[in-house]
């Protein structure tokens, strides 16, 4: 009765969402009375260290370096079968979306994508997830013997008090790669938006891309990721991956600061699960104020320098 957690450990730092997924798996394993086996690929360092977050074993396929969904699906499904896993946990990100649905279909396992909390296992197996782009939530009941859960980032507090895991290589055959990577373009060293705890976001009210410097400065002072509304991405003021909302990225940070964004229903859909929302808008009638915890009616050009100064002061004090 074990839990298999599939994570992407490439790169120098273990992503926050991977730490969350392991913690998430550990809580399920404790209920089932079993252990957590982490499954990963590539040449990530310090795999023993995954034990801190709850893994007792780590199985790694070093030969797979990229997100090749068929190879990774076989890796995860075969490991889950060997480990007699009842639950498989993935992250609901670009890696998880390539693999989790395939694993589910392969094992005829019910799959909940975008889980926002631990399953309720009293008498059944129900998982809460976002639907309607965060405008509502749904409890999904999985009735198959094996279950797959893809967890949204920021869904569980990380615990890191475990002891080192034992690491072994996946010995099996994963077949040839049918999707080959030709080139990789990294999107800056900034904070990964879906995982960010603080997000500073700006909209068409900024008037043009040349006015983004104070938005970025505030984000830097707060250790925040930057985001934007859809028209801003459509006009190429900001990159597409910053576009949040119903047709962009859905996020749930602790703190969302929106500057010069009207708060259209499609924008709110992607951000209204933020714990605290602060809105800066010069129009007192802007719909965003209805969804906000804190509001400032004012011009971004006048408000932003004050916010930056206050953030600098706060940083100097702590």
């Amino acid at each position: 009765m074990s839990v298999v957690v599939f994570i992407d450990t490439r790169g120098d730092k273990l992503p926050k969402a991977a730490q969350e997924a392991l913690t998430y798996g550990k809580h399920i394993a404790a209920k089932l009375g079993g252990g957590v086996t982490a499954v990963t690929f590539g040449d990530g360092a310090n795999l023993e260290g995954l034990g801190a977050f709850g893994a007792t074993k780590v199985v790694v396929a070093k030969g797979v370096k990229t997100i090749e969904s068929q190879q990774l699906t076989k890796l995860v499904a075969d490991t889950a079968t060997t480990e007699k896993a009842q639950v498989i946990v993935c992250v609901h990100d670009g890696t998880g979306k390539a693999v989790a649905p395939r694993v589910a279909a392969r094992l005829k396992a019910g799959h909940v994508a975008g889980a926002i909390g631990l399953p309720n296992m009293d008498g059944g197996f129900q998982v809460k997830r976002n639907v309607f782009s965060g405008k509502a939530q749904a409890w999904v009941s999985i009735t198959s013997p094996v279950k797959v859960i893809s967890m949204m980032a920021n869904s569980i507090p990380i615990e890191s008090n475990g002891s080192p895991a034992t690491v072994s290589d996946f010995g099996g055959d994963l077949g040839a790669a049918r999707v080959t990577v030709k080139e990789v373009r990294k999107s800056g060293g900034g904070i990964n938006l879906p995982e960010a705890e603080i997000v500073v976001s700006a909209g068409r009210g900024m008037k043009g891309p040349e006015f983004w410097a104070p938005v970025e400065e505030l984000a830097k002072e707060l250790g925040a990721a930057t985001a934007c509304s859809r028209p801003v991405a459509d006009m190429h003021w900001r990159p597409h991956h910053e576009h949040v909302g119903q047709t962009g990225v859905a996020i749930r940070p602790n703190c969302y600061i929106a500057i010069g964004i009207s708060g259209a229903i499609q924008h709110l859909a992607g951000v209204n699960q933020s714990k605290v929302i602060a809105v800066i808008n010069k129009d007192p009638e802007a719909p965003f104020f209805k969804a906000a915890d804190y509001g400032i009616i004012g011009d971004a050009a006048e408000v932003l320098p004050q916010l930056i100064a206050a953030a600098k002061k706060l940083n100097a004090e702590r």
Partner: protein
Amino acid sequence: MKFLVLISQVPDTTARIAFTNDNTQYDGNGVTWIVNPYDEWYALVRALELKEANGGSVTTITVGGADCDATIRKALAIGADDAVRVDAQPTDAYGVAAQVAAYAKDKGFDVVIAGKETIDHNGSQVAGMVAELLDLPYVPLASKLDMAGNTATVERDVPGGVEVVEVNAPFVISAAKGMAEQRIPNMRGIMAARTKPLTVVPAAPVETLSSTVKFELPPAKQAVKMIPADQAGQLIELLHTEAKVI
């Protein structure tokens, strides 16, 4: 190239989100239904562009009841050649994917393309499941798709950046923003759509693996706390000391 485009029907983005039957069902009363934006704007339009450039055909497939037909006609108006509706009422993504795969398995499609997610279920599941059931390569979250002969060059979003990948047909792909621009159907398209073939096929037997048992709406927000613009710095203090989020 034979394209199969997955088309899902979703409530309009401004639709009221409410539930009936003791919060077990979405309340579709008075709701305007649209083609899922990712299916329409990106998947369908890119398939049409590639067909127009290189020849071939574009077929759409929808899993659902007769209430989907108006939405399917919209996809035909935008330019798809023909449409298939599998007459089933699936309870989860697997239910949809299994129907699509059962239909597509012996039809020789070169490219199976879907939007990266629907705006109601937000699962990003169906295309990946179809790929597995058909034993095909899968490229999710693609923002660019070009074809040269049988070989596709695709840009896809991965954690921390963008990858350029190559894959040979047949394959499955899910479409994200950037792949194409929305097309507005014209009068000729709308007229032509009325007579294009919409084939209804019976459901294949598919096991139920999961189902939604209850919906919840998020709790209502407390009243907003306003801060005067000339004391804007207070916001940072409140976020730190009161809300404790920075």
